[in-house]
């Protein structure tokens, strides 16, 4: 995908973004602080900013500029004069080709019982689920998601994001997800565009960008590990990965993944413990060997240890007391342990 958008409003530069990246299947993350121009960039891509200079191109976009790019806002924007069912019908009728059915999307977003209701009688989370279902029914070539789950509680937020990731992969529907939460983005996305003050500051694979942001102290303490799938155990909803010559297990999140694919998993820094000797058998699933790259105090009681595991890094937040007791130092070989995540 090639984006080249320049937009001024009242002589003030709003965005000036040139980016080129593979849209592929899956979710591309757009990260940046509030007011950085993320939403404006999406509006430019969707063709909603007539005064934009530049162009937007991607493989599935036809010549005649009938973009048909879906957009879901932070607030649902469901049509208040129509029932939920009529909102869905509205989108389905306008779809150039009907790819999804109302039944299908109702099941994905658990909105079956809401169909007869008026949008205004729904909770914020219910409205967002209907809005996502509506956007999919319209069968867009590209789906733009502008903080679609920010107004939701943390549990349903990640559930919906995982559902979107699954749909994106299974139906080859590329999505651009905007958020100011790196944690949300890293949980579903493999490529990141970093927007600051209306400009593209950096772009690249999520793991690399996350390591960069972690080193700037910008993330909230989590890392990503990437590996090749060696085994899928649907009974345990679990995947085994080959990661930097070691084995790693993670949750499969119900996704349909086959052996040999690349997969990434997110590990919260305060879920990781460090041992200076090879640990014996325990209920903790994962043990990875690495060396200490850096030790940074992050509060009076806690230090953040960056472990280098082959080409990748893993963060561990441990107590300063433990760090002193184990006499941790740079380049020391250690074992990191964490539960299935």
């Amino acid at each position, binding site marked *: 995908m090639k984006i080249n958008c320049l937009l001024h409003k009242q002589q003030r530069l709003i965005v000036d973004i040139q980016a080129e990246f593979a849209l592929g299947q899956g979710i591309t993350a757009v990260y940046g602080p509030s007011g950085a121009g993320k939403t404006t960039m999406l*509006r430019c891509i*969707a*063709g*909603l900013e007539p005064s934009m200079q530049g162009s937007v191109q991607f493989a599935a976009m036809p010549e005649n500029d*009938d*973009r*048909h*790019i*879906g*957009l879901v*806002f932070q*607030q649902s*924007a469901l*049509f*208040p*004069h129509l029932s939920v069912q009529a909102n869905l019908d*509205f*989108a389905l009728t*306008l779809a*150039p080709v009907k790819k999804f059915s109302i039944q299908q999307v109702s099941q994905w977003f658990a909105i079956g019982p809401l169909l007869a209701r008026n949008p*205004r009688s729904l909770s914020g989370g219910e409205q967002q689920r209907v809005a996502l279902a509506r956007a999919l029914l*319209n069968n*867009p070539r590209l789906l733009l998601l502008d903080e679609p789950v920010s107004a939701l509680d943390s549990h349903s937020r990640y559930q919906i994001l995982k559902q979107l990731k699954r749909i994106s992969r299974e139906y080859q529907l590329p999505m651009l997800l905007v958020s100011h939460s790196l944690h949300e983005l890293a949980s579903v996305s493999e490529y990141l565009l970093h927007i600051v003050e209306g400009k593209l500051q950096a772009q690249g694979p999520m793991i690399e960008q996350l390591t960069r942001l972690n080193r700037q102290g910008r993330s909230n303490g989590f890392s990503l590990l990437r590996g090749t799938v060696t085994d899928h155990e649907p009974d345990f909803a679990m995947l085994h990965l080959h990661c930097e010559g070691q084995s790693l297990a993670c949750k499969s999140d119900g996704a349909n993944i086959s052996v040999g694919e690349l997969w990434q998993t997110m590990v919260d820094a305060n879920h990781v413990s460090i041992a200076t000797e090879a640990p014996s058998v325990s209920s903790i699933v994962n043990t990875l060997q690495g060396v200490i790259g850096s030790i940074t105090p992050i509060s009076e009681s806690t230090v953040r240890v960056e472990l280098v595991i082959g080409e990748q890094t893993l963060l561990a937040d441990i107590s300063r007391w433990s760090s002193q007791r184990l006499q941790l130092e740079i380049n020391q070989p250690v074992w990191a342990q964490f539960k299935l995540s």
Partner: protein
Amino acid sequence: MAESDWLALLLTLKLALGTSFILLLIGTPLAWFLVKSQSRFKPLLQAIIALPLILPPTVLGFYLLLAFSPQSAFGQFWVQQFGQQLAFSFNGILVGSVIYSLPFMVQPLYSGFQSLDKRYLDVAQTMGLTGIRRFFKLVVPLTKSSFITALGLCFAHTIGEFGVVLMIGGNIPGETQVLSIALFDHVESLQYQQAHQLAAGLLIGSVVLLALLYRLQRDKTDGAVQ
């Protein structure tokens, strides 16, 4: 009620309905254009549309009378086209009413369109619904209450019109003699009984109409920004 009063009532209703209908056709695109417009002349245009709100009806009536006279270019054009002059005719008071009630159509629609949450239109556009279809499928139902208010106000305001009609229409029964003029006529000729009938009728009718309007507004469920 005398036969001439019934005639005046029918004429008044015809005038009010005709004015409301014409203003719906003119005022809707005008209000939409004003909401969309970024032009520096927009305040001037808005001021011109709002003029009838503050100008004495006689001022407007006077200029319309000049414009309608067969000596003026517009008056000549009209007579050539339709073979009848505008002054002292039903069509003349219809044109006058349309101009005089214009702000009552444009202003409610303007604020209705203005407060419509733009995201509904954005979403519809991304789904492939554009232009006139988007207007009728989304904007009209979402601003329904503004349309009802605008139509109601135009209708009521036209019924209440006096000065403009008097200036350009005179007092011709069945042609330009509307209720307010008929009432004036009764008072002039000291027919207080008939004057009472018309005055009370207009008073009660107006109260009922406005009460209905406010009632409808209270139940509104439209697409304004929450």
